[in-house]
């Protein structure tokens, strides 16, 4: 068993019109984790994903799945596509059927599963994505967010080892985006590797275990969210911004409102706890633990008091 589910080595790819989309790209995606691929528009995220699924063949370099190099013959390709599923960015290009049920049954049927298994998987995928009540609706009558869920169910029904999602939260309203992220967390719980691309640094920071930054067809940085987002040069070089949490944390630490050299807070609650703890111990905490929870309202009051003091 390899530690990395998908690896690419010295990948080069140019589109027929001459656009060099990937340049000597090297990447390793850890197995069973949540990876976010960050990069501005045109960085090469979608192109990279198409290589992971064997749709595009590198002009030079290699792609490995589960430690084994990808072979581009019919059989091994089908096997690869069974294990690596892509949810495409534009649902209207992925949904080919007007019927939600037919649409989801397509993938598992191609795996050669018996009819009853396919039906079970379609039901499971619809339940997981919360689209059971859309079963009888035609895809052209769905909202954008609903279509997006159907495209995720499409891939879930194939039960891949790695689920790739190209810009899953682009165009989604905050509520749907949050639900989608929760859905990914649930999927990841049963061991599925999840890879998503985004240019939303806040999402990547609080969701991912591992972050890869792509710029101009190259990987210019990779690592844990903490290490990536405290590297100012890297963030600037990739035309990205700092997540607001890191920003606020650094400002507070600079002003002495909060202890520096702490593990970075991953969400708002973490930040509030950090501030609360700093108050109690008078600014001298050594072994800090986020689980020292205080009263939520009191924390909020403290925050507002602090903000006034800033």
């Amino acid at each position, binding site marked *: 068993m390899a530690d990395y589910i998908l690896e690419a080595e010295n990948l080069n790819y140019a589109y027929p019109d001459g656009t060099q989309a990937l340049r000597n790209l090297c990447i390793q995606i850890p197995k069973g984790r949540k990876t976010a691929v960050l990069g501005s528009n045109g960085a090469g995220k979608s192109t990279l994903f198409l290589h992971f699924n064997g749709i595009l063949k590198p002009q030079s370099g290699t792609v490995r799945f589960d430690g084994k190099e990808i072979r581009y013959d019919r059989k091994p390709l089908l096997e690869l596509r069974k294990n690596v599923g892509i949810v495409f960015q534009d649902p209207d290009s992925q949904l080919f059927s007007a*019927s939600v049920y*037919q649409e989801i049954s397509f993938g598992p049927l191609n795996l050669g599963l018996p009819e009853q298994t396919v039906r079970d998987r379609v039901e499971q995928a619809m339940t997981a994505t919360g689209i059971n009540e859309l079963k009888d609706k035609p895809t*052209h009558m769905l909202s954008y967010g609903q279509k997006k869920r159907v495209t995720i169910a499409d891939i879930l029904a194939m039960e891949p080892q790695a689920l790739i999602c190209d810009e899953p939260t682009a165009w989604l309203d905050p509520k749907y985006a949050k639900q989608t992220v929760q859905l990914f967390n649930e999927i990841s719980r049963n061991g599925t590797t999840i890879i998503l691309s985004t240019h939303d640094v806040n999402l990547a920071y609080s969701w991912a275990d591992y972050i890869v930054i792509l710029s101009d067809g190259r990987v210019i940085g990779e690592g844990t969210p903490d290490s990536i987002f405290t590297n100012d040069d890297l963030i600037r070089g990739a035309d990205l911004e700092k997540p607001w949490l890191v920003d606020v944390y650094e400002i507070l630490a600079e002003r002495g409102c909060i202890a520096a050299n702490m593990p970075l807070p991953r969400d708002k609650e973490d930040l509030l706890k950090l501030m609360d703890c700093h108050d109690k111990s008078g600014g001298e905490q050594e072994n800090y633990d986020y689980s020292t929870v205080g009263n939520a309202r009191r924390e909020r009051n403290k925050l507002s008091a602090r903000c006034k003091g800033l």
Partner: protein
Amino acid sequence: MLNIDGFAYNNRLRHVHPLEKAGFAMITMFLCLGFSLPVISYLVIILMAAAIVGCAGIPLKIYLKLMSLPFTFLLIGALTIAVSVTTQGVDAGWLAGITVSGITVGLTYNGLATAGGLFCKSLGAVSCLYFLSLTTPAVEMTAVMRKLKIPSLFIELTDLVYRFIFVMLETADDIYISQSSRWGYASLKTSMKSLGQMTAALFVKALHRSRMLFIALSSRGYTGQINVLAPEYTVSVNNIILIAVIESTLLITAVLLEVGKIG
């Protein structure tokens, strides 16, 4: 057309097995076409109106509007049959006519009867098709075609065309809005130009979409055939008995009338 599609997904017969609905519509249509007595056509028209408005719950106003679409078209067609031309002169079979330099143009009893019969027959057949398209969504029709072992290429095409009609329409709508918000349709000249540009843009987009679709299908293991499963419908014995009763009543009535006419 779009309106029909909307009703197909939202009517009281939506969850009836599509094969039952298709069977009902098709058998009735064949009976209507097979027997030449106008009474049968009247019966079929009334039966289908009752099924569409009464059972499926399509508003009467909508149904009348839909029926009026082929109505004018059929009327014109029937008129050309009703009018007879002859050089033999007017006899007892003629209802009215004008003779100009030996050629008589006018209406005969026979011609009128044929035209009337044809008109009713077509209207009856049309109402059968309306029943099917107002109660059965296109995807379920293709599911029926799959069951009837119609070649898969034909079914796949029907499915894809149906799906992408809506994607295309949406795209065209977006382009139209963006054009008209910039005065693209302010005058006849700019309208022509905008329309041309929209057509070109649609063509390019269609090409792009088909490429993306192929990629997306391939990534899910597409190898040349689109295999899908339709949801399972429950067969209702009651419905089948009801359909059998209605159809055999219609058939017996038709046969009796036909025999009576000959005798």
